[in-house]
């Protein structure tokens, strides 16, 4: 704490320089970082506030998809009508992160790079096939969102690298997504398990593509290919959902901790994936 400094660069290049230091931490919403600093779990020398970099906050449509600035807070996502219509699962997932107060601060990049296995927005970003735009000392690169987190508290970002933006791909008609999580209360808790499902349907309601991702049931959020595969070609008939649930349970490798037992997490992941799939399917049918 004694050497801590606060920097607020106004360009990506300056931020990269500031983050290349010995123990620098990027600050966007700060809702995880400041708690860690206060409790002594994180002891950075520099806190680098990214919010004053142009473009880091905001949402814009581009090439049929969306570019979301990495420091955009959850409340701004839900206030964006088009984003909420096209990607309701991502928006509802982001809006489950903490209270109204947290929503006014917490960002997608923070939720991702804090690298908690239980991060709510990550499964939904994965099923959306989101790409991260990453700035760093070697320039800018892009990477699939599921490649960022490598374990609890660990990311694949190199020193000096930070996420600048999230790119959501173009969305066709009859496609939608959903995210559900289980918490003991109705708000304010960390997910015991979470499941995101993104579907695209043909005119008859048959799934032409399906992605299922899980949170809090493994060291990182999991994209469960078999679970998505189980839904493709189905109209979510019971047999398809059962196969998907089996694939979900098979993929889970949870721990037992203060928030839930491994057995419970596994069972609940399947329940949530089932329910999320039904919600996504109903939403997709409504999409023009």
């Amino acid at each position, binding site marked *: *704490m*004694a*050497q*801590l*400094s*606060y920097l*607020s660069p106004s360009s990506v290049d300056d931020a990269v320089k500031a983050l290349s230091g010995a123990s620098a931490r990027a*600050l966007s*919403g*700060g*809702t995880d970082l*400041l*708690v860690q*600093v*206060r*409790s002594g779990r994180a002891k950075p020398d520099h*806190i680098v*506030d990214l*919010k004053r970099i142009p473009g880091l906050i905001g949402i814009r449509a581009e090439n049929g998809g969306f570019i979301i600035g990495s420091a955009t*807070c959850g*409340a701004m996502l839900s206030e964006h009508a088009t984003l909420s219509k096209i990607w309701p699962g991502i928006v509802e997932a982001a809006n489950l992160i*903490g*209270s*109204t*107060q*947290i929503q*006014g*601060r917490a960002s997608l990049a923070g939720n991702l790079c804090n690298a908690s296995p239980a991060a709510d927005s990550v499964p939904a970003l994965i099923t959306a096939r989101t790409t991260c735009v990453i700035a760093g000392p070697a320039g800018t690169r892009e990477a699939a969102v599921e490649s960022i987190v490598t374990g609890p508290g660990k990311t694949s970002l190199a020193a000096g690298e930070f996420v600048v933006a999230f790119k959501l791909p173009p969305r066709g008609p009859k496609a939608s997504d959903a995210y559900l999580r289980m918490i003991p209360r*109705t*708000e*304010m808790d960390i997910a015991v398990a979470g499941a995101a499902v993104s579907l695209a349907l043909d005119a008859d309601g048959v799934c032409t593509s399906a992605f299922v991702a899980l949170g809090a049931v493994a060291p990182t959020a999991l994209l469960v290919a078999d679970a998505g595969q189980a839904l493709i070609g189905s109209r979510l008939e019971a047999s398809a959902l059962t196969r998907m649930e089996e694939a979900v349970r098979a993929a889970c490798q949870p721990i037992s901790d203060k928030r839930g037992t491994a057995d419970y997490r596994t069972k609940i992941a399947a329940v949530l994936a089932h329910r999320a799939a039904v919600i996504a399917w109903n939403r997709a049918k409504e999409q023009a």
Partner: protein
Amino acid sequence: MSKQRTAAIVNGDPVEFLSDPGQTLLDVLRDELHLTGSKEGCGSGDCGACSVIMDGRLVCSCLVLAAEVEGCRVQTIEGLSTGSTLHPLQQKFLDHAALQCGFCTPGILMASKALLDANPDPTESEARYWLAGNLCRCTGYDKIIKAVLDTAAELRQDRKSA
């Protein structure tokens, strides 16, 4: 450790303060500006007792670094009433006995103001979810929710007749 100088607008007035890099907005409000109405119940964003409105958004001031508020507008409980005239929410909280110990009250009032600014006609469920980040251990929330909904109704009536 060198202190940083920050300028902001707090409750409509320009203020400048020095802070250590690790100090939060809540620390500065309480210890430097002596605005002790914002309370620290947890220091981790879980109780909402430190809620303030920053550039129009409700935040936990314990989760904002003091230096982050450079150029921002911050509204605290001390700025909720107009002179000696209470804000309608404050009056309704008194009318409904919506406080007991009063410690969570400043944060809940600021959160309620942000709610009614964003949604003048919340349902009971909307009010409960909006306020889920503000813990109250005394009241069971019953009278708080009633006071908020009653304020909303009164403000809508005022707007109609205005």
